[in-house]
């Protein structure tokens, strides 16, 4: 937590402070008009204090105009029927969250590479949930939206991803006053993790792979995107132990290296499966399951290849991990 750059934390506080003052002033005005009400317990707090990735932030409770940029939160928000005023439709796939992507009233922020940050300003939000792919734009977003509270609650680098996912959904629960629902999500997640860990024999070797554009990449244990975090959470034995150079897209690896490592299990993320690359699309089932070089590998020979939900590349939220751990638990138990 203390590794955050102080300037950013200061920026967050500075943004939050005037807002808190405004809110406090509103509160005071209401109290003055109706002094009797101030004493009554029905006047609940209008803000909640949370710890985001930059420090302590006062967030308006149950905000009405929300902009979400972090892919981890869309599933939870859509399940809770939280309307958005702007969202990055370019990185939300199609048909995963139709309530947001197919709604004309939700302004399009584009993608993190070609963002249209002005649409955030135009949406006049109370709360902006930034971070993750949009992490680089944090300072701009804070500067351009002085009236909004900006928070980043995506899993932090170097922290345990499982804990971070839980933390994230708990913060959402606090902000949107859905703490019971958040607790349910956390419970389902923890059950799935426990089941998968219990089903693992403790010795089988596992390798994580990412396929894209007809190429196979290696997703390193712990740090590799999507699959990496599964290793420490379940205590899996890696078939190839090597630090990653490209943690988000994986490192170039040939089929020979996979064959030589001869993993008992392969967990694959098909990055093109999420609606992009339908053209020259060579699915992971073909690249790995049908590769002539891999037929004698234990994982392929014994049908022990776990293919992630193709949308995983765009979701990566606690729900997606819950489903993945359930899938792993089932596969391990069946072996």
């Amino acid at each position, binding site marked *: 937590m203390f590794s955050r750059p102080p300037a950013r934390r200061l920026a967050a506080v500075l943004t939050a402070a005037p807002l808190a003052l405004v809110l406090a002033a509103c509160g005071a005005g209401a109290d003055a008009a109706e002094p009797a009400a101030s004493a009554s317990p029905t006047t609940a707090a209008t803000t909640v204090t949370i710890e985001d990735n930059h420090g302590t932030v006062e967030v308006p409770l149950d905000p009405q105009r929300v902009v979400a940029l972090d892919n981890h939160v869309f599933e939870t928000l859509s399940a809770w029927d939280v309307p958005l005023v702007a969202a990055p439709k*370019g990185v939300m796939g199609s048909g995963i969250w139709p309530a947001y992507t197919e709604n004309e009233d939700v302004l399009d922020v584009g993608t993190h*590479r*070609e963002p249209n940050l002005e649409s955030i300003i135009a949406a006049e939000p109370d709360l902006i949930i930034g971070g993750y792919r949009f992490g680089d734009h944090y300072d701009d977003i804070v500067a351009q939206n002085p009236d909004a509270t900006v928070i980043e609650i995506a899993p932090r680098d170097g922290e345990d991803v499982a804990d971070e996912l839980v933390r994230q959904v708990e913060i959402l629960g606090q902000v949107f006053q859905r703490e019971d629902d958040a607790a349910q999500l956390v419970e389902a997640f923890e059950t799935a993790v426990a089941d998968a860990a219990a089903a693992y024999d403790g010795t089988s070797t596992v390798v994580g792979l990412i396929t*894209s*554009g*007809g*190429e*196979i990449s*290696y997703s390193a244990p712990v740090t590799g995107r999507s699959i990496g975090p599964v290793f420490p959470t379940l205590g899996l034995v890696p078939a*190839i132990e*090597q630090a990653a*150079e490209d943690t988000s*897209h994986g*490192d*170039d*690896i*040939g*089929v*020979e*290296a996979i*064959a*030589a*490592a001869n993993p008992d299990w392969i967990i694959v993320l098909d*990055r*093109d499966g999420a*609606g*992009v*690359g*339908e*053209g*020259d*699309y060579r699915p992971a089932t073909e690249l790995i399951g049908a*590769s*002539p*070089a891999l037929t*004698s590998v234990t994982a392929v020979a014994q049908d022990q290849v776990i293919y992630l939900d193709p949308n995983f590349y765009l979701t990566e939220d606690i729900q997606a991990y819950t489903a993945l751990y359930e899938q792993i638990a089932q596969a391990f138990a069946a072996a």
Partner: protein
Amino acid sequence: MTTLTTAPAPTAARTWQRSGGLLAAALLTLALVVTSLFVGVYDLGAQGGDAMFWITRVPRTLALVLAGSAMAVSGLVLQQLTQNRFVEATTAGTSEWAALGLLLSVILLPTVGLATRMVVASAAAFVGTMVFLVVLRRVQVRTTLVVPVVGLMLGAVVSALTTLIAVRTNYLQLLGTWFMGSFTTVVRGQYEVLWVVAAVCVAIFVLADRLTVAGLGRDVATNLGLSYDRVLLVGTAMVAVASGVTTVVVGFLPFLGLVVPNVVSLLRGDDLRSNLPWVCLGGVALVTACDILGRVVRMPFEIPVGMILGVVGAAGFLLLVLRVRRRG
């Protein structure tokens, strides 16, 4: 050579040296090719090693030989046609056009096979190279540097268009994967189309004399009774096919067509016909050496050959140019 005294002897000695040199180059290249067959993560002595040899090593090595010789030889042809030493597929925009063709084929014809994609990519490469040649014909100042600059500018415009289309259609991340020259995915069943470029190489050998004459310029060539335009078209078509096919299967192989023909010229002078085998061998040797390096440096991972070629090729070329300059 200076110690020889009789008149006919130097010629004989030179001829002998020449063929001896070629033999040595061939042996060196062969050694690299054989090394490529035995460099890899999988232990060939282990169970299944036999099968792995035929599934990955042989196809990969053949692909290296085919793509390496084709790109080097097409660099030589483009240099003849434009009468400029600094022109090759990646500096004339040919590869960029092939990439645009590939992306368009993926977007507009999502279900077609590899063969159709290659035809589209090669056609785009042909159109692009013709555009380059036409623009070049209208350029008044044709100094050594202006010609490749024109090619690089055209290539940049085309690649900007490709990027724009990729951004709009969400293919941007795939673009990097596709065009980064890499032989990692080359396994049995994935490289066979590369044999097309073998035919291109043979055709270039057959047409070598005509290409040499065309390299003297339109006026001289026409005076010598050559149908200049026809040779230009055929030459461009061959280069387009070689770059189109290589781009689809492997990706960009930067500098290969630039470094190899120039190194051969620097060492042997300009004689297209007798240089051709050297350029072929040089292309194979350079791309194979770079690929072996890419396979060994980060075992069990690989570094794409395009990256190594960019570094090694550029550095080696600079060194050579500087050394030859100094010697006068």
